[in-house]
Each structure stands twice: as structure tokens, then as C-alpha cells.
């Protein structure tokens, strides 16, 4: 496997005077180049802590993380690691730096010392990639949450990263804004080949992923295709996660003796499964 990020036996501890909390425990993980990975887990399971280590914002207490072969602890390459692994957070308001959209998107490339002409081109490309080019000269605080978050994503794209890590980017958005972001991410992944690591609380956002990781108490307890993950309803419930309604319905049908395949995820697939099962009953 060609990994863009390798996490090797990493532990992260938050320390204060009295207590030490291990938020990530002896975790190892490979993220494949060009893949779309979703990380699930209940509150406090260590998702954000892991995410902030992927671009070197936090350094592991023990163990190492390699981004494209560079150790995130390597101080000389700190900027390069942050460029390669772009990070988007929950609250778009606290990520936008300038009061004009295009100037905000230009912030990253400016910091990287990209020549002005090239920055202009990158800003246009990035805004086009998130479908926000027409708002180039607007001011961010007049935009909707979903639009602001897309501006934040454009600000990262303009640095031409290999990988995008997003920590609950849809948590503060309405359903329409959420759909916009997920659509944008899928497009960036498919068309630009950018690796996506998406942390979310919304199960339906995991359905499009190549791979789903479930975190619990600082560890990865499941790592598989979405269909497989969601068919194991009991495990998900055990670690305090919601289950997509379709998965739960099929699971309950199966438990009560109906012959359905619990791997169906979309409503349509689930409906077909149920129709099939009803026909075979006759």
C-alpha cells in the first residue's frame, strides 16, 4: 500500500499537575494515498487528538508519525508537513483570517512564499474547486455556514495539499450546508485525487467512504468498509454510536428471522432487501 500518512505506535497524553490523560493509546494506522477515510467515535474518544497529530500540530508523546516519509517531529520540515496535510476545523468563523474571500484563500500560499501571479491562479482554482468562485470579492461574514466552510476548505486547497484532514467540518451546519461540504469533499477526492480523512458524528457521511475507522477510548476498534462496519449494529451501539436507520432496521429484521443482507446501506438497497425477503417468505 502506498501510504501518505503512517502512524506508528503513537500515544498522546494530556498532562497537567495532577493527572495524565492518555487520549490516544499505542495506535498504529496507515492512510492510503488517494483514499477517503472516515473516523467515527463518541465524544472524547480521541479523534481530534489524533487529527491534530497528523499534520504535526501536536507531537506524539511516544511513537512516530510520517507524512510522505517525513517525521512530523522533524522541525526543519514542519511547514512542509503542514502544507502536505491541510486541516479544516469545526467552526469556519475561527479559521477565516481576512475580511475578503480571495484574500483569505491567498493566506496559505502567501505564507509559503508563492509568487503573486501564481497565488492569483491558485486562489481562482481553489475557489472553483469548492464552487465559490463567484464570491471571490465578498466578505465572509455575509456568507452561510456551508459557504464559509467551503471558503475554509479552499484556503487549504490553495496550498496544494496531498491530504485533507477535517475535524467535524459539518457539526455546525444545517443539512443543506452539510450536503454541500460532503459533495465538495467527494469531488476533491475523485477529481483532484486528494486524500481525505473526515472525522464526523453523522453516520450518513460515512457511507461514501472507502474505509471507516471506529475509535473508542483512544484506540481503533474497527477498521473496514462502511457496509461491514454498519452491519455490526451491536458493536456500534456498545461504543455509544448511532447506527444508520436502515442498518438498524435490517439488523432487527434479521434478528427476528427474516433472511436479509444487513450490508445494505442506502434506503433503496435496504428496501430491495426487504422486498426480496418478503417474496422469499411466501
Amino acid at each position, binding site marked *: 500500500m502506498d501510504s501518505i500518512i503512517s502512524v506508528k505506535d503513537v500515544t498522546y497524553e494530556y498532562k497537567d499537575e495532577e493527572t495524565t490523560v492518555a487520549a490516544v493509546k499505542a495506535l498504529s494506522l496507515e492512510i492510503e494515498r488517494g483514499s477517503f477515510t472516515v473516523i467515527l467515535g463518541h465524544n472524547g474518544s480521541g479523534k481530534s487528538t489524533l487529527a491534530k497529530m497528523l499534520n504535526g500540530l501536536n507531537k506524539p508523546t511516544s511513537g512516530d508519525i510520517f507524512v510522505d516519509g517525513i517525521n512530523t517531529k522533524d522541525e526543519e520540515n514542519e511547514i512542509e508537513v503542514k502544507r502536505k496535510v491541510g486541516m479544516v476545523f469545526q467552526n469556519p468563523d475561527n479559521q477565516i483570517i481576512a475580511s475578503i474571500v480571495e*484574500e483569505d484563500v491567498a*493566506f496559505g500560499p502567501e*505564507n509559503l512564499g508563492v509568487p503573486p501571479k501564481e497565488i492569483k491562479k491558485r486562489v481562482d482554482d481553489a475557489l472553483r474547486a469548492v464552487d465559490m468562485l463567484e464570491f471571490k470579492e465578498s466578505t465572509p461574514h455575509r456568507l452561510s455556514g456551508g459557504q464559509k466552510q467551503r471558503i475554509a476548505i479552499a484556503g487549504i486547497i490553495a*496550498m496544494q495539499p496531498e491530504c485533507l484532514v477535517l475535524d467535524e467540518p459539518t457539526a455546525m451546519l444545517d443539512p443543506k450546508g452539510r450536503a454541500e461540504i460532503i459533495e465538495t469533499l467527494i469531488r476533491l477526492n475523485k477529481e483532484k485525487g486528494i486524500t481525505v480523512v473526515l472525522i464526523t458524528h453523522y453516520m450518513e457521511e460515512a457511507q461514501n467512504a472507502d474505509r471507516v475507522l471506529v475509535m473508542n477510548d483512544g484506540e481503533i476498534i474497527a477498521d473496514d468498509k462502511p457496509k461491514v462496519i454498519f452491519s455490526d449494529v451491536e458493536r456500534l451501539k456498545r461504543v455509544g454510536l448511532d447506527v444508520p436507520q436502515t442498518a438498524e432496521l435490517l439488523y432487527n429484521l434479521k434478528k427476528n428471522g427474516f433472511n436479509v443482507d444487513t450490508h445494505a446501506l442506502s434506503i433503496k438497497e435496504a428496501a430491495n432487501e426487504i422486498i426480496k425477503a418478503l417474496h422469499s417468505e411466501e
Partner: protein
Amino acid sequence: MLRDITFGQYYESHSLIHKTDPRVKIVLLFLLIIFIFLAQNGFALGFAAASVLIIMLITKIPFKLYLKNMKAILPVLIFTAVLNLFYGESGRVLVSFWKLQITTDGVSRAIFMAVRITLLIFISSALTYTTTPNDLTDAIERLLSPLKFVGLKNAVHTLAMMMTIALRFIPTLIEEAEKIMNAQKARGADLENGKLTERVKALIPILIPLLISSVRRAYELAEAMECRCYNGGEGRTRMKQMHMAGRDFIVLGASLVICGGIITLNILL
């Protein structure tokens, strides 16, 4: 509304002054203000006033907007003028009471002062109406950039960054303050009535949450900036370049003519 601080007082009317390089505008503002205060006699000041009026016409900004800015400063203007009334040292005594007297010299001083302050407000408004706060910030950063040669490189960059972030966050914080205020009102807080001390006390439950959330914002913003490869402005380039164009030199030349005119009238008359 304050919320529109992003554009400040900016008023788009596509004039020559709008298109002038903001750096040129800032330098000329200072130059003209100095020369307005250097005008010694009525002719020089009259010439300065005429020039300022012409500049105002060129900006194509409605005159009432200029007057609006005037209104805010009117008390200061009146105060300064009245003070100057009593400062006349020579000239015929017009009125005299107690230890004070108003002389013809005092009257002319008062008028001069009032005209100068008025011109100062008009000409500064001509800058703020034709330039966005962002452009102003950028221009100030670039104008101050020679300071980096005397070891103040970081200071200039930091100052400009602070202004950029302040401009960006003022609308956000105002919105947040409104939200908190509404939340407190919904819980029965009375912000509008009562004695001054009570009203000040009522502000505390608004300021504390606002402060806490600002600290959180600042922390998250710092992380976001770090993620976007910010490292204090070292090796940073800028997307927007400022180039002086032909029209900037015309504006510059015209302003120098105004300054020259004021000095000539000062000497000749």
C-alpha cells in the same frame, strides 16, 4: 451599522481618487494636512479650501456624507474655535468681560481654526470614503516596511496582522455580543433601565461570556493559522501587489502644486 465595518465608510463611485494607490493617498493626506496648517493668511487658506473642495468633487461622494462626518466632530470644532476667540494677543478689543477679552485677532484665529479643522475632516473623509479598511491596512504595512531596516520588521508585520484580524473579527464579535445580550434579556436581565451602577453591573454577565469565547476563538484561530503555514511573516509574499500607475503620479503632481500654491500665497501676500 457597525457590522459593516468591513467596508468601513467605503463608498463606491468609481472616481479617480478611488483608483489612486492607497499609499499615495495616505502620504498626500498627511502632506495636505500639514500644508493646511501652514497656511498663514486668508488667501493661502482660501486656496487650500478651494483645492479641498475640488478634491471632494472629484471623489463623486455625495456632499451630505461629508457633512455627516462633520457632525460628529462639531462639538470639538466649536470648542476649539471658542477657545481661540480669547487667545487674540493684538488687534482691536471687541468685547471684554471679567479677565477675558475678544479681539479682532482672536476672531480671525477662531475662524482660521474652524476652517482648518473642517478641511482636515473633509480631506480625511475623502480618504476613508474612497479606500477600504483592508487597502488602508495593506498600504500602512507597505509604507512602514522601510522600518524593517532598523530592526522593526516584525513590529510592522505584527501590527498589520493585528489590524487585519481585528477588521475580520469585529463583525463576528458584535454578532456574538448581540446573541449573548438577547440570551440574558430572555432570562430577565434588564439592560436598559435603572441607575448607572446597576446598568454597569448588568453588563458583566455579557462581557464575561464574550471574553471567554474570544479567548477560545483566539486559540482556535492561532491553530488554524499555524495549519496554514503561518510562521510570523518570514518569507511571506503578497497576492495583491501595489504598483504606482500614471494616474498616481498625476494625483501626486496636482497635490504638490496645491502645496506650492499655499506656500507661494503665504510668502507673497
